[in-house]
């Protein structure tokens, strides 16, 4: 059975920096930035394919690991998982007791 094609939603490329592990997004200049807001958004399937190919090339060049495309909504990661990756845990991190 062929599934109905999902309508295309804008995507950005994200990965983790090989050395530090930090969450990074590929920006318009082909650099990897910690800020999702700087990420290059692919608005068409062709642009998405191109972006993924570039991200994978950066993986093969040992700059980043686990590159993937993620959907964005209003420029921000669309899923809860990706929002948490972007902005950090949703809990107050343990600190010295008040």
């Amino acid at each position, binding site marked *: 059975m062929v599934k109905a094609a999902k309508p295309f939603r804008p995507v950005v490329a994200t990965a*983790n920096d*090989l*050395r*530090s*592990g*930090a*969450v990074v997004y590929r920006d318009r200049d082909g650099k990897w930035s910690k800020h999702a807001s700087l990420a290059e958004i692919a608005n068409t399937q062709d642009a998405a394919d191109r972006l993924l190919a570039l991200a994978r090339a950066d*993986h093969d*060049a*040992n700059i980043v*690991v*686990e590159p993937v495309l993620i959907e964005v909504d209003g420029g921000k990661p669309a*899923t*809860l*998982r990706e929002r*948490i*990756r972007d902005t*950090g*845990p*949703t*809990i107050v*991190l*343990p*600190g*010295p*007791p008040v």
Partner: protein
Amino acid sequence: MYRYDEFDHAFVQERVAEFRDQVARRLSGELTEDQFKPLRLMNGVYLQLHAYMLRIAIPYGTLSSRQLRRLAHIGRVYDRDFGHFTTRQNLQFNWIRLEDVPKILEELAEVEMHAIQTSGNCIRNVTADHFAGAAADEVADPRPYAEILRQWSSLHPEFSFLPRKFKVAVTAAPHDRAAVQVHDIGLHLKMNEKGDRGFAVWVGGGQGRTPMVAKKVRDFLPEANLLAYCEAILRVYNLEGRRDNKYKARIKILVHEMGEAEITRAVEAEFATLQGKALTVSAPEVDRIARYFALPDLKALPAVSEAYEAAKRVDPALALFAKRNVHPHKVPGYGILTISLKPIGAPPGDATSDQMGAIADLAERYSADELRVSHEQNLVLPHVKLDDIPVVFAQLQKIGLGSANAGFVTDIIACPGLDFCSLANARSIPVAQRLSERFADIDRQVDIGDLKIKISGCINACGHHHVGHIGILGVDRKGEEFYQITLGGSGDETCSIGEIVGPGFSSDGIVDAVETVIETYLKLRASADEPFLATYRRLGQEPFKEALYVR
């Protein structure tokens, strides 16, 4: 405690050098990510949601003050000032730079610690009863055997590329605090009529997608055969375990598919070829290792401490703490003190570097320099004079860790979930926090009594939800977090897997749902002494189901 000799030091140093070389090869590009991944996993380095995570082994949960201070230091220097104690007696740091890992491992090696086999398809950190070596009810200290197993399993040339991970737990008390029946191998140390030591051997327990209670394949395996028998089990598993489907690769599936009789036959046949050879556990070797675990020199004291009794009479908070967080010690005049890492509203199992430092000081001063880490994500001071408990309690309160809630409804186990874990479907920690806040009232906790809530953020079940009296499993339903409730699980000697009670609840509804279950229990219990699990086992899930779903 076990102390490294030259050989042990050389071993971990070599392992650090080996891993440093592997990291360097990865960073230089000689190793691809695909090639590197199994190597880093075998040394506890994951790539999680936010960064690399490093999982450090705390073998059988035993830790010295010096080691805990070193962990605090690593948290401070290389991470965000706190660490997470896991359900497998490990410690995790969440924001570790790959480049830093060799340096961190070196720092760990200095205090006789490592991250060897805290992940990967190999024999994982051997866990044990967290009261081991102190518990009044144990037959003997199980840790010498856990140490023997740790050594035997470390970088084992035959069993480092198993079908899947492999977990071994050891206990020596009739009351099983190590959950041996939900491990790949569970070992229950006991004594026969002649006074010889041996083990009941359980095989094929586990949680995850297909939870199963282990089968007992030997009622009494003589101590001498411990390693040969484990080697036989592992060999059968390595050769016969499924490798075609990661979800069917654990030994529990093999036991299930072969059947208890057939797997026992295969193991016994293999064992027959190994028995009496190089792996024989000799009495002198057990004695040699056991000497490291000798009870610290605890001064004989009266069984009852007048000072302690008097302090309890005037301070109800201390009295409650004594009741919940202090367990009987094998030496009169001493207690085993549980430090709850579950203050109301806090993420379960987390401790800041400052807290670790303060706890290390307490252990050094009041607990013969020893600590334990429990699979319930708490810390334990195993050897505290009853006389000293009031002052230790006061000190704990100062660092925010004086909660008298061990085993209560707010002593919740929760995995890191979607806040940290890349495999998660839903968040665990915020649910634990909200539940903890809902039941914050200590009188209500006392009224409810013993109740274990365990939360996992996905079916991998790191939060042990299958064996929670109330288990909560996070699932993803079309991008929304949903939570499924299981009831009646238990990880102790009366081991049972919790039963799914019905459709899941939204994130907003889960806390109310748990409260409904608990209120139903309070209404139905035969008496105030009947704990939740007993009521559930007596009545089954119907009344709970009705309360949850029929309105």
